[in-house]
């Protein structure tokens, strides 16, 4: 556990000082400022415009950061040969990967909380009211979604040999998971696919993570959950199970890799 903590600390410090990460922070602040300007320009429904566009921007920048950082870190370690410096110490590959994953996830969640803090400050300064669902969404649901996105992006970091394919594959997987419900619906009801393929699609969409669960507003619109506590409990467990699964896949892929 000590080694995992040390590697997580090492990862966190390295990324916090990285120019790319600082660039993401600057971009997120600019986007919140942009949302604020847009809200002021509209005149009417200022609160609605600001909150809705902030929801979009905060999630967008958090996901982009998660995919970018998590799908490139181990590749960067291998390409720069920094991995030799770390793995020649008494650290197992499991400890290295888990530490890296934790450090990266904390790093992205820290960025998310920083933007959310700025957003909350602006809403409180201007007296905008945030509902309980919105607070939960900003402070917990997006964080859980970040953990899941980090975990599947991390798989490609341990598998791919260069940045570009890892980024492309991670974003592709993100879009598949994000729109899995619509894709399943389209494939099983509207497409011309063979009948025997439909159960296959159903099974695939059943086992793959469905990011629709992280849309708190939609989940309550369709009355999927009775209360906020049952929803958050379900979501935490859902995220935990899939993240562990992706971490195991990362470990298998990394163990097979020649360094």
């Amino acid at each position, binding site marked *: 556990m000590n080694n995992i903590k040390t590697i997580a600390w090492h990862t966190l410090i390295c990324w916090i000082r990285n120019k790319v990460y600082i660039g993401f922070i600057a971009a997120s602040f600019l986007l919140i400022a942009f949302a604020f300007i847009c809200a002021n320009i509209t005149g009417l429904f200022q609160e609605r415009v600001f909150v809705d566009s902030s929801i979009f921007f905060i999630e967008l920048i958090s996901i982009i950061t998660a995919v970018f950082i998590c799908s490139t870190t181990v590749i960067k370690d291998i390409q720069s040969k*920094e991995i030799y410096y770390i793995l020649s*110490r*008494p650290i197992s590959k499991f400890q290295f990967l888990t530490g890296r994953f934790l450090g990266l996830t904390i790093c992205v969640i820290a960025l998310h909380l920083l933007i959310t803090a700025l957003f909350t400050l602006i809403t409180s300064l201007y007296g905008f009211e945030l509902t309980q669902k919105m607070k939960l969404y900003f402070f917990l649901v997006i964080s859980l979604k970040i953990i899941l996105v980090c975990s599947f992006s991390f798989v490609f970091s341990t598998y791919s040999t260069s940045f570009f394919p890892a980024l492309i594959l991670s974003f592709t997987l993100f879009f598949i998971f994000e729109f899995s419900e619509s894709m399943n619906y389209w494939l099983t009801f509207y497409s011309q696919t063979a009948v025997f393929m439909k159960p296959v699609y159903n099974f695939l969409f059943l086992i793959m993570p469905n990011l629709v669960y992280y849309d708190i507003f939609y989940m309550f619109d369709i009355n999927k959950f009775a209360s906020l506590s049952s929803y958050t409990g379900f979501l935490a467990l859902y995220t935990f199970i899939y993240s562990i699964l992706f971490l195991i896949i990362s470990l298998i892929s990394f163990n097979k890799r020649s360094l």
Partner: protein
Amino acid sequence: MVSAIEIKNLSYSYLDGIKKVLAVNNISLNIETNSSVALMGINGAGKTTLIKCILDFLSPQKGEISIFGKKSVDSTSRTELSYLPEKVNLTPELKLFEHFRFLGKLYKISNAETNERMKKLSALTKLENLYETRVGKFSKGQSQRAGIALSLFNEPKLLILDEPMTGLDPLGQKLIIDILNELKNKMTLFVSTHSFEFARKLADKIIIIHKGAAASELTNKKDIQDIENNFYKAVNIE
């Protein structure tokens, strides 16, 4: 006495397209504790691959490697060894003292002890004024010296060096030779090198690798002094 490194029938191959390349071919070696061994061979002979197998960066298809009696796949086998690669790649975002702290935490050494070792090793490698500098701003020579200081941090019993003189200026080379001479007989040194002079000065034993196999082992002083001829004979070059 337990051997520092014991390798039994080690083979490692990889795929180059559809062609299978045998990089290490059935090597068996025994490196005794507190000996200084030089590993020599032409480029592509398998020296670095062998070192990577010892450090568990590569998983050999056949054979066994033990480090002080522990299997190399066990991460604790690396507690008493250190590795200095050809090109030292430290984390550029961290300052030198943070690298020492990082290692202190990994080896569970107190902050006070870490600071003491840091001062001693920085003096040895002439880096006293660079504690607060990010390693990314170091010159190649400074990075190599920092690599040496950090590789000695855990007071290893086995130091593995992969072509440590590559790309260093004469001053940097002299510093490395002086440090290794100082360490000789206090710990096991396993050095991959292309320099006959370096091998002659340092080694009690020279292993010549050719086409992935151990082509020759030189142990007596006369053979080591005549390393050039023995090397060319082993790799079949007149």
